[in-house]
Structure formats: C-alpha cells, structure tokens
C-alpha cells in the first residue's frame, strides 16, 4: 500500500470503528441467536453499533446461517451496494465451511468464494460474546494500523 493510502485507510477505519452501522443478513440460526446481541442483556449499542435497515447506510454486513444458491446472488448484490469502507463478518460455522450442510446440494460451502470476508466468528450457533470479540479484534486491528502509520 502506498504510504498516503495507508494513512487515509487508517483515518477512515479509525472513524468507522467508533460507530459501526450493521446491516444484518440473519437467516436460520443467526436470527434466533443474534437477537440477544441487540437486546438489553448484551446491548451492542453501548459500543456504538446499531442495526440499519439497508446496505447503503451500513458499514458492516453480518451474514449468519447457510446461504443457498438463490440467496447468495442477493448477498453479492447487497455487498456491492455498500459504500466503501465496509467490513463483512461471517457468523456461525455455516458461512465458514458450510457447517452441518457441508454435503447439501443446495447450499454454498464457503462464503469467501463469493464475497471477501474480513472476520469469521465460529460457533453453531455463535455466542453474542463472540460477536463483540470480533468487533474488538476489528478495533484492535485499526489501533495497530494507526500506530504503525503514526510511527512512520
């Protein structure tokens, strides 16, 4: 990466991390398991995360549950429609390796073959704490990036 480009990316990600707006593509296990993340017990809003209702407002696309061949077309279109500094988080084992649908004829096996995935959160279903740890890792990565840029 050219020096200035890295500095710009560090600044953009630095701002993104404090107010991540999530577009959720929750189906199958995601919807039932990931609601506590939003509700008052785990409350993701204390980190500035809110769920937005369309990809054009969102920065982070969370995909949980298996994707069929029909639905992955929509996922790719949704991913393309998101404005640029964007992050994709694959939750649960289904998007990572196909999960328990590894030998089903209708589901796709690896999400990363179709869209670039930045964070994998294993678990079938994934725990809410795992989601926060993933966001924590994103913050960690950005902090390291900023340090590296400021040191230069």
């Amino acid at each position, binding site marked *: 990466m050219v020096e200035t480009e890295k500095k710009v990316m560090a600044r953009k990600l630095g701002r993104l991390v404090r107010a991540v707006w999530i577009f959720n593509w929750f189906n199958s296990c995601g919807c039932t398991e990931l609601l506590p993340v939003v509700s008052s017990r785990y409350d993701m809003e204390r980190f500035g995360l809110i769920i937005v209702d369309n990809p054009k407002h969102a920065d982070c696309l969370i995909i949980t549950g298996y994707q*069929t061949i*029909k639905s992955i077309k929509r996922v790719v279109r949704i991913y393309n429609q998101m404005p640029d500094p964007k992050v994709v988080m694959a939750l649960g084992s289904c998007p990572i390796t196909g999960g328990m649908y590894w030998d089903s004829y209708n589901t796709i096996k690896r999400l990363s073959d179709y869209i670039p995935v930045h964070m994998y959160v294993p678990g079938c279903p994934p725990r809410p704490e795992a989601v926060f740890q993933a966001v924590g890792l994103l913050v960690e990565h950005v902090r390291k990036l900023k340090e590296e840029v400021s040191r230069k």
Partner: protein
Amino acid sequence: MSWEEIISEYKPVKQRPRRIWVNVPKEEVYDVIRKLREAGFEHLSAISVTDWLNEGVFEVTYHLWSYSIKTLLTVKTKIPRDDPVIKSVVPIYGMSAWIHERELHEMFGVVFEGNPDLSPLFLEDWDGPPPFRKDFNWRDYVREKFYSKERERDKAYWEVWLK
C-alpha cells in the same frame, strides 16, 4: 351428487373418523377432483408426490379439506416414473395448486399440463436431475459441484470419501 357417492365407486379407505383415502386411476382424477370441489371440498391443503422406485411409479396425492364436512379426503393416483405427465388442477383450485405443482415439477420432474408457469421455485439455475428422486445420488453431485480434488482445503473431504 354428495361426495360419498362420488368416491364410493373407488373403494374409499377410512383411516380415522375424519381421514379418508381413495385411489383413483390417472384418467378420471381430474373429473373426480372437480366434482369433489363442487361437493364442498374447497380447500386444497397440499399436493405431494411419493417416488416408488422399485414399482417404477410416482404416486401423486391431493389433500382436500372441507370446512363444512370437516373431513380430510386424500385422493391418490399413480403415474409412470419414466414419463410423469398429469393434468394440472390449476383450473379448479387456482394459485394454491400452481405453487404446489411448480415445486413438484422442480423436485420430481412431474409435468403438469395446463399449469401456466412451471419455472423453478427454490433451485435457481439448477443443472442436476430433479433432486427428490430416489435414484438421484446427491453425494456424487455435491462432490463434483462444490469440492475439487486439486484444492488444498478439500483434500480432507476426499480422503473421507475415498476410504
């Protein structure tokens, strides 16, 4: 013409107080269903197909329910497996029949004549044989389509399969 007389000639089997099965030959099934519709069976709850591989036959079942008579009448008919063609009931029951027939066409390959649109419902751009058929070996299909021998990460799967 009450519904008992309509199905009496086809020896109905009474499973339980409100469950009646009746086997109807392929040619007369359309007329029987139309008469049953007028006799009070307004609700087509489902159409399903069972694949009898060894007899080489598809068994198409129409589950009809009536609000007034409060009975579930299951009309069954057999069609040959190699060219599964049957008259569509969309003119009788309309859109509910259309959706069921569309799915059955996609999953079993049964052709419903007279159905306005038999396009795929769940499996978009599907290149394999109809998946619900008993002779469809889905393991091989998945292996070819999703897992390739060359890729490093798929080696583990191939060892499991070849063992």
